[in-house]
């Protein structure tokens, strides 16, 4: 519990690390309509995919140095010596990133999507899919960035994005099904299942990787 407070505190005090990404999300959302003729049908059709890509890019930017600072000032080492395991730290870090970045951009994205389609039902599509997918994205980008750690974020992104394609396709299917008026709850459940698997396994893999970095 104390760990959650400490990690929350650490991230909260770094404005650029969480407010920055949220603003970047807004900027991406704004910049897409500028490149399409305004109020056209076309924008409505692609708006959801703009949302997915914007959230992916935002998470990519925000997670790029999730472990770097703790690695460089010796905090990871300190934590490992004290607890003999890194799992709880990594799990908490990812959770905090989701709370401070994932949830706000999910809400913002949902807000814009309601505006876009004049339809309150989009609330059922955008909000749950964004909430689940941002958590998955953060986990996987954390994995990629733990591999590249102090070797620059481009390498982390290069490693991670191919792993995210299935989730993007799933998100696309959800919108497709919703447009045809089909049930989407089973797809959301599938994504939730993926998330539950990932929540447990990814921090394990990351702690192995970071332990190797510390050696």
């Amino acid at each position, binding site marked *: 519990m104390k760990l959650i407070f400490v990690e929350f505190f650490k991230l909260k005090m770094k404005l650029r690390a969480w407010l920055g990404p949220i603003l970047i999300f807004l900027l991406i959302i704004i910049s897409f309509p500028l490149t399409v003729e305004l109020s056209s049908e076309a924008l409505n059709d692609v708006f959801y995919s703009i949302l997915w890509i914007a959230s992916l890019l935002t998470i990519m930017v925000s997670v790029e140095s999730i472990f770097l600072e703790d690695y460089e000032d010796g905090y990871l080492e300190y934590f490992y010596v004290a607890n003999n395991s890194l799992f709880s730290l990594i799990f908490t870090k990812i959770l905090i990133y989701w709370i401070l970045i994932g949830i706000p951009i999910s809400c913002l994205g949902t807000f814009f999507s309601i505006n876009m389609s004049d339809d309150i039902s989009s609330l059922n599509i955008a909000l749950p899919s964004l909430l689940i997918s941002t958590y998955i994205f953060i986990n996987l980008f954390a*994995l990629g960035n733990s*591999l*590249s750690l102090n*070797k*620059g974020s481009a*390498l982390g992104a*290069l*490693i991670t994005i*191919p*792993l995210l*394609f*299935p989730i993007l*396709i*799933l998100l*696309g*299917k959800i919108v497709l099904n919703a447009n045809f008026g089909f049930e989407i709850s089973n797809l959301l459940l599938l994504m939730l299942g993926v998330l539950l698997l990932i929540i447990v396994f990814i921090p394990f*893999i990351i702690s*192995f*990787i970071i332990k*190797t*970095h510390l*050696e």
Partner: protein
Amino acid sequence: MYPYILYFSVLFYAFALVWGLGFAPADYVQGNSFRIIYLHVPASFLSQSLYIVMAIAAGIFLIWKVKLAAYMIKSIAPVGALVTFIALISGSIWGIPTWGTWWQWDARITSTLILFIMYLGLISLHSSFTNFEKADKFISVLVLIGFVNIPIIKKSVDWWSTLHQPASITLTNKPSIDPTMLYPLIFSMIGFSGIIVSLIILSSKVHIFKRESHKSWVKRNV
């Protein structure tokens, strides 16, 4: 020993090509353009099977800490990228006369492109570390993650859309290709695989010598 594998498989592949290009009948729909199959199919077959080999090596390295397995991964990755690149290019060339386009957002093509990017990701990950022992571990972890993920990517991309003709040869079903074309194809696959395998042996040999350069047996042999 590998030079003999190399000579033999080059001969074998040349034989298969002469047979396939010169003597096998033209396809009655695709005409002569189908003959690029003797490059495309072996390359796409190897692009995936090399990844499987790497994944096995990665497992062996992480569980039993066999250094040789790590050297194998390191030497397969560039060759795998090359083979995947050949598969993509030959597929594009084949696509122009048959589909009228060199690129299509189709499931198999897209997943091959993703595979190509993943190979390059592996190479750049390994090359960015100066401590090779760590780099070996990282690359193995990434290979295994990719190994779990590639079938998922393939399935999901399939789900997304497909245009590509289904695989011509599978182990379980009767092949959907005429024997006169099939035999040179099988020969070309064996020959091509042989060339690639000897390339891998050559590059891992170089790699072992480089990494173990302080050992006395290396000094004796070089």
